[in-house]
């Protein structure tokens, strides 16, 4: 997709979010709820399965465009499973050659103790899926689970499970599903391609999706802080006139730019298959670091009012805090980077850092 078409698409997405996911609307959303109306509009626009191939019901768009859309979604704090549907469930279903159901989708990697067993022609699934994003609102949870050492994709209907609701710091649904001998019909379980590195791919895509949402939220926090500093007056002048505030905003803007570039470059690495592991580890680590700095400084700039429920800032900062610890935090991803680096000759490591 060329950049003009991408810009036009982003304009449409932003307009839809301005209309249906305004700060007031987001603030009014009860904890655990979702934005069904926005989802329908995004589906109509054609972005919910943007990077999925057309013959599987997607829009056949490229990853960088999908990335830009996710960043926009994140900046509006939109209560929809955009990343889960586009990057995870849609991807899993398309690599299995399965038609993708309509509606909001989510996905999960089964824990080691989850059991998929055969029952005649069908299957049964037992175990617990913890903190699955948006599960209670989704028609399908796409689960990656092993059967006899082979990865399978199983489509689970949350209604067939016992749903233990949960939320993250921003009130987004993170539901734990208890499965007790849940029947799975033959058409809802398929082998995943062997040697597909599905688990690693899932973790990376989940982390990248989260980092892209964080990038949008980071941009929003910088924007809110810049505006507030220009408007709020103390000592007879706007906060923006004080060097301490100027330095904070510059610091925030720098981190937001770093995150923007890191997530864009990681998206390209995933699309091109050029060392996406290192790229996404770097991007999610950068996201955590940026989120911590930006959220803290945004609250400093906004003063006491920014810490209230009345003000919009918390819609963005609670997401930065929540997403920072989802799909692997800085410690997890940076440790992986470091461990890998120490097994790599320094000359080779240098070449990898340059994103060939």
């Amino acid at each position, binding site marked *: 997709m060329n950049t003009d078409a991408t810009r036009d698409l982003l304009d449409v997405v932003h307009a839809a979010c301005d209309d249906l996911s305004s700060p007031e609307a987001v603030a009014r959303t009860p904890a655990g709820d979702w934005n069904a109306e926005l989802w329908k509009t995004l589906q109509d626009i054609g972005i919910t399965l943007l990077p999925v191939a057309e013959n599987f019901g997607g829009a056949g768009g490229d990853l960088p465009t999908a990335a830009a859309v996710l960043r926009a979604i994140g900046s509006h704090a939109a209560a929809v499973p955009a990343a889960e549907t586009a990057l995870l469930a849609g991807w899993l279903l398309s690599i299995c050659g399965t038609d993708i159901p309509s509606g909001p989708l989510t996905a999960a990697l089964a824990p080691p103790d989850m059991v998929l067993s055969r029952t005649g022609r069908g299957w049964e699934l037992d175990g617990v899926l913890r903190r699955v994003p948006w599960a209670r609102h989704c028609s399908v949870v796409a689960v990656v689970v092993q059967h006899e050492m082979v990865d399978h994709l199983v489509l689970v209907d949350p209604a067939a499970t016992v749903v233990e609701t949960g939320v993250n710091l921003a009130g987004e649904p993170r539901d734990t599903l208890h499965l007790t001998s849940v029947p799975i019909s033959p058409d809802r379980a398929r082998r995943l391609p062997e040697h597909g590195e599905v688990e690693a791919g899932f973790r990376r895509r989940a982390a990248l999706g989260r980092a892209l949402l964080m990038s949008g939220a980071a941009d929003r926090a910088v924007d809110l802080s810049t505006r507030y500093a220009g408007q709020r007056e103390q000592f007879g002048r706007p906060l923006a006139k004080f060097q301490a505030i100027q330095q904070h905003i510059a*610091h925030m803007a720098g981190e937001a730019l770093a995150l923007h570039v890191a997530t864009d*470059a990681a998206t390209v690495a995933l699309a*091109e298959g050029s060392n996406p592991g290192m790229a996404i580890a*770097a991007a999610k680590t950068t996201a955590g670091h940026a989120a911590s700095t930006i959220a803290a400084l945004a609250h400093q700039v906004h003063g006491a009012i920014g810490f209230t429920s009345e003000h919009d800032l918390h819609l963005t900062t609670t997401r930065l805090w929540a997403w920072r610890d989802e799909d692997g935090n800085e410690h997890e991803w940076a440790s992986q980077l470091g461990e890998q680096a120490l097994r790599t000759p320094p000359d080779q490591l240098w070449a990898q850092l340059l994103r060939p």
Partner: protein
Amino acid sequence: MTALSLDAVSSTAELGRLRGQVRDFIAAERNSGHFTPAVNSWQTGWDPEFSRRLGARGWLGMTFPERYRRSAPDGALARFAVTEELLAAGAPVAAHWVADRQSGPAILRFGTDEQKAAFLPGIARGDLFFAIGMSEPDSGSDLASVRTRALPVAGGWRLNGTKVWSSGAHLAHWMIVLARTSPLRRDDRHAGLTQFLVDLTTPGIEVRPIRLLNGEHHFNEVVFTDAFVPDTRVLGEVGDGWHQVTGELALERSGPERILSSYPLLAAFLLHAQRTSSSTVDFYAIGTLLARLWTLLAMSSSVAAQLDAGRSPDVEAAVVKDLGTRFEGLVIDTVRQLAHIEPDPTNTETLINMLAEAVIHLPSFTLRGGTNEILRGIIAKHMGVR
């Protein structure tokens, strides 16, 4: 608010080949014993012969038009690729550094055809070296307040004043000097400044060493007493000095040397950690460094791509320099913490003396070429909060 923007840039096969050639060159130089890797080598590693060998390969003046240099891949991205390889290896690139990075490009942009012909080929060959004449004892961050005065005389100008922090001025051939040609106006502090191409062998120029806290000499104070500069050596327009110097500053701030000054230390440490399989190695701390480095290199490429596209990403360059120089310090502190060694500049072991060198020079990283506080002020202004 005007958004900051940098597009991610993919490398090309051509750049990959270029990097390979530079790596081969570096390996051969090291095997011949021509240099020992050092931190901060772009400031401390003065080696005219090394510079000439780079010039012979076509790896200097890469942003100059072909007629002024030896044929090779050109443009900012290519130059960044070459300099990244050299800096990561801690190669002695100081002699040609200023000329290649900013003086040559300034002459290219503002110089007469005669000046371009007179200077650019020598810079590209690596045998014509420049120093910077900007800061003064009373003018550091506030560059517009410089007092070095150029008075018009027959056939040229008479220069009086003092410049400081001129790296390599005791060894360089020429200096671009920022001087006042009209009195300071309170309503327009930037007006009345002019840049001069000054031959450092001119009578009336005295170069005095500035010694750093460890006694090292790279920087100098340069005193001009009635030093004559001919009209043919005014760079650009009389009175246009501020506009010209800010363009030069963008080049000074945008490069990979603002990220990689301490990389040789990191490389040495990683090698040491692998060889000793130390149990105190902290994967998280190392990975944190690598995540930031990966991101900064991506940002730096984006800046280079914008330069190649004829744009002037001054504010984005300021971000990269701000984050990059802080990263350089984080490398030093992380290695220090994990290596459990006592820095000693006289020790023959690479890691120990490199760490000493790095710790001592670290304060300068966030001061030189624009303090981080000034850089953040530039960013804040762009964000509309200043």
